[in-house]
């Protein structure tokens, strides 16, 4: 399974690897216009209880739908976060 925003631990810092080609061209452009581009760092602030994901991208807090977040493929989990997972984390 590829790692995407929707299956990463809360509070982890991630680097965007690519926007999945499964997303429609419109969705790809919208994600990218909001700064979700290859190489950008994303922090997951909240993801639970059926609410959208809350992320920090380019110093801006944004809500992103779960479906859209699945198109954002990421790498480079920050190790300190992975070693001390949040009690709320759901992978």
């Amino acid at each position, binding site marked *: 399974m590829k790692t995407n925003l929707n299956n990463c631990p809360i509070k982890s810092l991630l680097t965007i690897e690519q926007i999945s080609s499964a997303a429609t061209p419109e969705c790809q452009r919208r994600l990218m*216009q909001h*700064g979700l*581009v290859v190489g950008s760092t994303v922090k997951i602030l909240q993801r639970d209880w059926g609410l*959208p994901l*809350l992320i920090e991208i380019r*110093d801006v*807090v*944004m*809500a*992103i739908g779960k479906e859209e977040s699945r198109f954002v493929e990421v790498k480079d989990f920050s190790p300190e976060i992975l070693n001390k997972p949040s009690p709320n984390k759901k992978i």
Partner: protein
Amino acid sequence: MSLNVCLIGQPNSGKTALFNALTGQNFKSTNYPGVTVECRIGKFKTSQKEIEIIDLPGLYSLDSYSFDESIARDYILRKSNKFLSHLNLNTPYDLVFLILDSTRLTKSLYLALEFKKLNIPFILILNMKDSATQRGQEINIDAWSKFWNIKILEISAINKDSIQSLLTAIDQLDVIAPVNPSYIKDISQVKNTAFIAESFKEIDQILEKFTISKIKPDTKTARIDKYLLHPVFGTLFMIVILLGLFQLLFTVSAPFQDLISTGIDYLSQLTKDVIPYPLLRDFLSDGVIAGVGSVIVFLPQILFLSLFIIILEDSGYLARVAFLIDGFMKRLALPGKAIIPLLSSHACAIPGIMSARTLENESDRLTTIAIAPLTACSARIPVYTLLISTLVAPSIYFGPFSVQALIMFFLYMLGLSFGFIVAWILKKKVFKSSAYHLLLELPPYRLPMLKNIIQGLKFRSMAFIKKAGGVILVLSIFLWLLIYFPRVQNTEGSLEAPPIEQSYAGQLGIAINPIFAPLGMDWKMSTALIPSFAAREVMVASLALVNSVGMEKEEEGLLDLHKKIQREYPMDTILALLIWFVFAPQCLSTFAVIKRETHGMKWPLIIFSYTLVLAYTMALLTKALF
């Protein structure tokens, strides 16, 4: 020298605040994206130039999809657009004022790069300098300005010195020729995913090069969001806030309403005492004062509702409501963002329907417009308040909440719930579309500005008073004429008002009563319902007028209208009338806006028909059940 300028910026970058500061106008500016859904034109002067400025809706990129963004995009790229043609906005512009939020440059500079790469002439205005400075940001603006070879200014749109520096900078501009459309590069040649990725890399390089001190994170907003966006606490807070609103509507506004009511009663009595001519006396006291006064008495409640919505908007909380409610809205195939037009519709459906332009998907926009009339706009407050007061005494409480407030809350929720059902049917069965992309920026929390609140309340109260002095006055007079004519001869041989059932209004009410009789309504209520199709709050005035004829002396006060209703109608009829007003078609001006927003008569007719059928069916069911 004159200059045509257009004001462009990303949503929530402070465009409207700058427009107001430059032109001295008082348009609404708030702390959530998508406030400017109309194009506004204003004028101002510097010491050397006369400027005509157009404020366009915010946009994230020139490659945008939503209806409001496309208006701004097409104006900038000089493309044809139905809405722009409708507004006759075809004047070529000389220059763009591109305004961005200083605290969000890593993201918002993308739009500036697009402008630069497409050869669009612009001044870059970095707004909210005060917030950025507070958070430690320092940028070498002069060096950056030279590097890009454009004018870049840091300002705070609410600061007079900042505005003065902008005016000075405008004076220093060289002569500018109107933008030639062929000069602008074709966007399709440069826009692709590689272009976007490259642009963000370039943004990072520029900020790295010219930033002296980086901006610190907004810890205040993060701390508040920890609780207000929490799935449990945040949702509970949202419910308490909404319940508190209805509590306030009844408890806080009651003394103000009493005061206005006493004033109107005094004025009515004075008219009766002073004017010797019976016809003129009745016209003024029963037609004008009773008609308009019975609606004006609800001004405090309307202002408290508006105050509450302004505070929600200005503080930045409204975007959080959209976040919290998105999961629920998604089940109805609507985006969480749709809650913003729907909440705005609670003050007045017209701005709510217009702000649906911020929704990217056309089916989402049409669905939101279709259900906006089911949200309880402030025009319903007079009717709800009057009828609820006939059902429950104000002294009855359930825990900390008055039962009157809880019933009002229930009515609001009832309309909204049916709105959601209609939305689900439209999205799933008619449009058969569920796709939308939730990407919502959450603005930082800000303390609502007193000036903004006063401006908002002034705007709402003036709009209400204007309506009371316009359509409500006209309808009240028209109804009074129908009630007082044809004149009949009394036993002494002089002319006087006829018995109500012999008046034109009575005859009309009796003629249409078979339609409303199954709902328990008599011919008086049927008569009073007719003008409410033009403006809902007129129902109260019409009931007051219809019932003022033959009213007993001790019941002449406006507040006694509810006693009259209580005495004349059984509870099931009052409930049926209440439910009728939850669903009944909106006022004429709302349908005019729906026609404009949907470019035709199809949607106004659909919405009118379904709300009419729904109102009748639900009122009939209520009558049968109780």
